[in-house]
């Protein structure tokens, strides 16, 4: 019974707790047991405190028994990427440098989940300082893909993607600066939302590149994802960039379907480097949307999109280096070699190029929006351009020649960060090696609701999101 609870979705366990069919203590004990059982093979959990988690769960049960439910996630145990600060608790950021860092503040995102009633029972492994797309971590070890532990988990929200796929947790916060929610969602066969830049406050979240950083949920289903998104989105005085636009009631329109929705299919750029087997899986998901009533419309992507990958790299390098300069100078040997080398790039980036890269965001987005969103409601894209590589072949310390392939991994994700648009990633099949792949739906700014509606329609007619890795069955 205990392990069966872990197979429920977040929505299902939240409903079961609300109805009194399952206690928070039972659900929490099940997650903790599964983490302890499976983490030696997966290295997805960085730290857990079972006594504190069970105490919080019993408190939630007591509150509910007294008629005091905090919110829609009351008593649901979650776990998050180890970069979301909680006052007094270590937030290691996948690093040696922050291994003992106990912040004095709690992140806006965690506060939102607290208000919704969720429990925060573990810190999840991640790429060192969130700088990397494969999931490798020289400091804390590389999490393992539950579909095949020889393969990368995707990064930088590596432990989050693995934990959700392996049913260690019902949902997890990730972060996405160049693809760090979408890669682990893709590699692990789960659902990830990179919201519009500024939709979710970054206060109390480890910064990597503030002009691009986005906070978002990784879950098994679209519906689960909405529950977390609605808990964390909104304006926050502690993050001056957080948007004042109201957060819509996404759940109320989630089941409205896609009849008449115009879905853009790019004629250029986004499929240029995609391998045939991945392209076929991704394009098959278009058939599902079309059968559900969506209208597929070919769109031509402006040529300026080609520059956005490099501009994103430039912004990340410059902003990360500015944040890390004192540690780079004082504690260079405490970084992993790849992280350090990539951070160093930013120290010698010309300020004029950085400002130009940021200044061009508006005109490039204006051109993109006119070409795409004047014609369609959402855009359908691949996430990864190839099948998922193994951990060994993509370890650039042993195989430096793979660096070019790693840079190419961002061809379909980094432009979306540069444009700041919301993107919902969902699984759509398996490559010849049996590893998942995914597509992403991209929307106009602050229109996460339409992405979720389309995603829900897709998941109603498919079962990729319900597939369970054999190791987690």
């Amino acid at each position, binding site marked *: 019974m205990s392990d069966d609870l872990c197979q429920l979705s977040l929505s299902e366990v939240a409903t079961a707790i609300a109805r009194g069919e399952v206690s928070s203590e039972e659900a929490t004990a099940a997650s903790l047991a599964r983490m302890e059982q499976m983490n030696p093979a997966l290295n997805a959990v960085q730290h857990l405190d079972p006594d504190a988690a069970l105490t919080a769960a019993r408190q939630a049960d007591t509150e509910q028994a007294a008629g005091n439910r905090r919110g829609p996630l009351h008593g649901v145990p979650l776990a998050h990427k180890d970069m979301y600060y909680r006052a007094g608790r270590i937030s290691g950021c996948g690093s040696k440098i922050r291994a003992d860092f106990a912040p004095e503040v709690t992140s806006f995102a965690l506060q939102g989940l607290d208000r919704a009633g969720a429990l925060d029972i573990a810190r999840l492994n991640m790429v060192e300082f969130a700088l990397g797309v494969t999931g490798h971590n020289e400091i804390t070890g590389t999490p393992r893909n539950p579909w095949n532990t020889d393969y990368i988990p995707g990064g930088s929200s590596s432990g989050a993607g693995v934990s959700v796929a392996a049913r260690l947790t019902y949902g997890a916060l990730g972060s996405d600066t160049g693809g760090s929610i979408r890669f682990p969602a893709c590699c692990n066969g789960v659902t990830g939302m990179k919201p*519009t*830049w*500024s939709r979710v406050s970054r206060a109390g979240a480890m910064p990597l590149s503030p*002009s691009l950083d986005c906070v978002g949920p990784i879950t098994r289903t679209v519906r689960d994802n909405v529950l977390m998104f609605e808990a964390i989105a909104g304006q926050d005085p502690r993050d001056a*960039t957080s*948007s*004042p*636009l*109201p957060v*819509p009631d996404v759940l109320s329109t989630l089941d409205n379907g896609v009849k008449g929705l115009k879905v853009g299919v790019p004629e250029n750029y986004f499929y240029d480097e995609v391998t045939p087997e991945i392209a076929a899986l991704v394009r098959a998901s278009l058939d599902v949307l079309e059968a559900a009533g969506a209208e597929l419309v070919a769109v031509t992507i402006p*040529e*300026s999109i*080609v*520059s956005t990958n*490099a*501009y994103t*790299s*430039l912004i*990340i*390098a410059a902003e990360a280096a500015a944040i890390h300069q004192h540690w780079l*100078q004082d504690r*260079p040997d405490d970084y992993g*070699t*790849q992280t*350090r*080398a*990539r951070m*160093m*790039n*930013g*120290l*010698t*980036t010309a300020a004029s*190029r950085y*400002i*130009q*890269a*940021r*200044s*061009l*965001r*508006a*005109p*490039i*987005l*204006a051109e993109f*929006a006119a070409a795409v*969103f004047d014609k369609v409601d959402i855009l359908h894209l691949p996430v990864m351009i190839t099948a998922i590589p193994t951990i060994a072949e993509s370890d*650039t*310390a042993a195989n*430096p020649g793979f*660096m070019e392939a790693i*840079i190419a991994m961002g061809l379909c994700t980094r432009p979306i960060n540069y444009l*700041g648009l919301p993107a919902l990633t969902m699984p759509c099949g398996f490559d010849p090696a049996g590893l998942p792949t995914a597509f992403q739906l991209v929307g*106009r*700014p*602050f*229109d996460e*609701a*339409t992405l979720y509606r389309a995603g829900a329609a897709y998941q109603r007619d498919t079962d990729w999101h319900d597939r369970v890795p054999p190791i987690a069955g």
Partner: protein
Amino acid sequence: MADTDPLGAWVAQYQGVLMDPPPKAPSSADDPVQARLADLAFEAEPADYVRLIHALAPADLKEGSDHE
């Protein structure tokens, strides 16, 4: 290099085959896309981006907000 660019020299000791290629944007003078982007940069500044994403937001979200 060390005499004129001490930061560059210090950085270089930690860089090697593992680093990304320098993250410079494409800038070939005969590239029409880059030439056009260079013109756009003359007219733009980073804050324009925040205004634009709010201008592009769904109309129902903008009603009653500061971002019309």
